[in-house]
C-alpha cells in the first residue's frame, strides 16, 4: 500500500513539470504584460518599458522560466506583481473561500443527488424515474452562473433574504459566513447534483440486477436493508469517483460563479490574474490546482479500498 501511494506521488513530478512548462509558455507567449496593466491605459510606452525592465520581463523567456522553477524547488512561487505579497500567501488567502464554497456545494449536491438517484433507480422505467432524470439533465444543462443570477433575483433582490454577493470569513461568525455562500452553493451544488444523481441511478440499477440482490430479497431481507446496505454499498465506487471529480472541479475554482457572487476564491484569482497578466500568480495557482486535483484522485482511489474489500484484497495480493 505504501509503495502504491509513493508511486502515485512520484508520478506527480513529470505531470507538474509538463504543466509548468505549458502554462509558462502559454502565459508568456500571449501578448500583454503586467507593466502595461499596472501603469494604466494612458501610460507612455517609455514608462511601460522601464517598468518591464525593472520587473525582469524583458529577460529571455527560458531564463525567466528557470529562475521561477529554481524558486519553486525552494518552496517559493514568487511574488504577485499586483498584490504586494508572495504568491503562496495570495493562494492561501483565496483558498479559504473556495474550500468553504466547495464543501457547502458538495454537501448540497450529495443531499440532493443520493436520495434522487436511489429513488429513481428504485422506480426505474416509471414516469417518476424519467421526470427525475429529466430534471437532472436540466441541472447539467443550465450554466451555474445563470442559475446563480436567477437565485439572486429571487432570493436577494425580490425576497431580500440573502445578500446579493460578497464574502465574510468564518471569523465574522458562522451565519455571517454561510449566508453569503448559500446561493453560490446552491447554484454550483445543483449542477454537480445532477451528475452525481445520474451516476447513482445507473450504478444502482446495474447492481439491483445482480444475482446477490435477488438472493438477498429471496432470503426475505427488508427492502431498506437490500437498498442501503447491499445495493448502495456495492454501487458506490463509481458514485465516489464522480463525487471526487466534482469536488476537484470545485476546489479548482468555479471561476464564473465566484465572479457573479463576488467570492474572492481561487477561480476569481485565476481570472483576475489572467486579465492583469499577473504571471507569477497564474503559474503558482495552476500548479496548486494540478496538485490538488491529482491528490483528490489519489484519495478517491484509496477510498475504493475502504468501501470495497475486493479492491483492497486485489491490491494486497
Amino acid at each position: 500500500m505504501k509503495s502504491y501511494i509513493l508511486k502515485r506521488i512520484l508520478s506527480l513530478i513529470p505531470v507538474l513539470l509538463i504543466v509548468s512548462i505549458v502554462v509558462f509558455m502559454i502565459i508568456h507567449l500571449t501578448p500583454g504584460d503586467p507593466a502595461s496593466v499596472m501603469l494604466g491605459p494612458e501610460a507612455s510606452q517609455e514608462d511601460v518599458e522601464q517598468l518591464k525592465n525593472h520587473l525582469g520581463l524583458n529577460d529571455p523567456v527560458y531564463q525567466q522560466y528557470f529562475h521561477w522553477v529554481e524558486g519553486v524547488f525552494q518552496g517559493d512561487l514568487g511574488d504577485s506583481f499586483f498584490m504586494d505579497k508572495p504568491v503562496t500567501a495570495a493562494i492561501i488567502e483565496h483558498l479559504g473561500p473556495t474550500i468553504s464554497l466547495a464543501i457547502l456545494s458538495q454537501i448540497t449536491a450529495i443531499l440532493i443527488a443520493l436520495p434522487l438517484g436511489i429513488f429513481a433507480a428504485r422506480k426505474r422505467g416509471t414516469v417518476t424515474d424519467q421526470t427525475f432524470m429529466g430534471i437532472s439533465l436540466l441541472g447539467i444543462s443550465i450554466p451555474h452562473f445563470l442559475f446563480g443570477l436567477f437565485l439572486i433575483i429571487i432570493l436577494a433582490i425580490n425576497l431580500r433574504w440573502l445578500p446579493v454577493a460578497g464574502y465574510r470569513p468564518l471569523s465574522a461568525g458562522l451565519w455571517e459566513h454561510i449566508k453569503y455562500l448559500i446561493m453560490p452553493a446552491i447554484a454550483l451544488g445543483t449542477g454537480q447534483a445532477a451528475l452525481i444523481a445520474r451516476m447513482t441511478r445507473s450504478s444502482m440499477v446495474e447492481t439491483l440486477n445482480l444475482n446477490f440482490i435477488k438472493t438477498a430479497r429471496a432470503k426475505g431481507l427488508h427492502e431498506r436493508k437490500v437498498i442501503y446496505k447491499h445495493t448502495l454499498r456495492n454501487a458506490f465506487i463509481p458514485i465516489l469517483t464522480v463525487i471526487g471529480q466534482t469536488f476537484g472541479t470545485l476546489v479548482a475554482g468555479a471561476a464564473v460563479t465566484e465572479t457573479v457572487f463576488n467570492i474572492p476564491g481561487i477561480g476569481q484569482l485565476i481570472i483576475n490574474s489572467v486579465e492583469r497578466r499577473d504571471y507569477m500568480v497564474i503559474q503558482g495557482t495552476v500548479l496548486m490546482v494540478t496538485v490538488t486535483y491529482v491528490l483528490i484522485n489519489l484519495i478517491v482511489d484509496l477510498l475504493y479500498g475502504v468501501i470495497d474489500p475486493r479492491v483492497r484484497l486485489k491490491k494486497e495480493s
Partner: protein
Amino acid sequence: MSKRLKNFSWLITVLLLLSVALIGCSSENTSKEKDSASGDTAVKKGGDLHVAIDAQPPTLDPQVSTTTATKEIARHIFETLLVLSPDYEVQPMLAESVDKSEDGLTYTFHLRQGVKFHNGKEMTAEDVVASMNRWLTVSTRAANAIGKGQFTEKDKYTVELKIEKPTVGVLDVIASTNQFAAIMPKEIIENAPKEGVTEIVGTGPFKFVEWKPDQYIQVAKYDDYKPVEAKPDGLAGKKEALVDNIMFEVVTDGSTRLGGITTGQYQIAYQIPSDNYEQIASSSDMKPILNLYGGLTMVFNKKQGPFTDQKLRQAVNTGINNKDVLVGAYGNDKFYRLDNGLMYKDQAKWYTDAGKEYYNQNDKEKAKQLLKESNYNGEEVRILTTRDYEYSYNSAVVLKEEMEKIGIKVKLDVVDWATLTTKRNDPAAWDAFITGFSPVSLPTQTLPLDPGYAGWPVDEKLQQYTEQIRTAPSDKDAYAVWEEMQEYVWKDYVPYIKIGDYYTFHAYRNQEIKGNTYFEGMILWNTSLTK
C-alpha cells in the same frame, strides 16, 4: 388518484407553498420600500459607506498609475498642492498660495502650516520637494507638459519650482486629476519601488486602513485632518469626512453591482451597465450619476501601413457617419455627445469647435474621391479592438461598415484589453485602434497628439504648434494657437478621429446618502449617511 399522481402530489404541494411564500414576501417588501422612500433624511455622522467599484486598482500610488480605479480611491487619501474646481479653475489645497516670477521661470509655492500626514508627521517643504520631483520623473505626461523642471526647498514652508523656459499651464498640470501629483512623506518616497509606494500615507480626509486583494479597500476618517476654510467646490474647498469608513468593495460583475445597489448592500455602485439606466432613473431609491468619461477615438498608425497616407485618413474622416458609430457603441443618446472639441466642452478655458466643418461629414462621394487620390490599393486594413469594453467593439463594427461603404477593406482584430495595450505599441501589428481618452488639463497633454504615443504622430507642423502653445506669452495667445492646431488636426493631418464624447453612469441610493458630488471621479468627503 392513481399511484403515479400520488407520487407527484408532495412535489406539487411544495411548489405551491413556495409560490405563496414568494408572493407574500414580495408584497411585504414593496410596502417597506414605500416607507423608506417617504422617510426622514436627516444627516448623521459616522457609519460605513459601502461603494462597489468595478475594478481593483493595480496600485494606490496615484503618481505611478493612470488607471481610473487608482484615481477614484487615492483622491480620498492623498492631496495635491493645487486642485481644480468643476469649471477647471486652479484652486489652492496644500499650497496656500503660488507666486509666478515675471520671467515665468520660477513658481513659488507657500505651503499651509500644520498639515499632518496620516503617520502623524507634519508636512513640510522636504516632503513636497521629494514628492513633486518624483512625480516629474514617473509621469511622462507631467514632464512633457512642464518640460525640464526641478523643485527645491526654500524654507520649511516654501518650495520653488524652476523651469527651463516659460510654459503655459504649469499650475493646471500640477492640479490635474489623473496620475496626480500626490504629496507623500519624504521617507516613503525615497524607499518607493518603481511599481509604486508600498506605504499608503497621505494628508487627505481619509486614511488607508486595509486592502484585501480582490475583496475591498478600507479607508477611515482621519481625525487630525486639517481642511481649508473655503466653501466646498468640486475637489476644492473644505473637506470633511462625515462617515467613519468607506469600504471600496471590488465587484467586477456589472449585474452583481446592480443587484447590490438595488438591495441596499452598497450605497454607491460604479459603472452600471447602460441598459439599466432607465431602471435606476425611474427608481425612487436610486439616482444615476452621468459622467463624462472621455472621447471615443480611432487612432491611425502613421508609422507603418496604409494610414501613413494622409489622404486615406482624410477619406475615412470625410466618409464616416459619427452619429451612427456612437449609436452603435452606446445606444441611448444620454451616453454620447456629438462634438468635435479635442478638449471637452466642459473645459471652458481650452474648448474650441475649430475645424467642425470637417467633423461628422458623412460625405461618401467626397470620401471616395479622396480615396482615389490616395495611394490605397485595396489592401485590408486592420482595426484593433477589444470586447472587454463593449463600446470599443461595437463602434469598430459600425466603423468597419462605414469604411467598407467608401471602398476600404477592413478586418477587425478583436483581442483582450491587456493584449491590445501591448499590441498597439508594435507598428507592424495594426493599422487603426479604438480607444477612449479621458479629459486632460492642457492641449499639450493630449495623448494621441504625442509623437511617442501609439500612432506616432510625428509631424513637423504639429510639433511647432505644440511648442508654440507651451511657450506662448499668455493663456490667450496659447488658446489662439490651439484653435489653429485643432483645425489643422481635423482638416489636414487627421492623426486620429474623435468620434464623439461618451458618458458612463454610476448609481447611488439617494435615500441613504447625501452630499456626494462628482468631478472627474466620485467625491465622497462631505458625504454622509442619512438616518
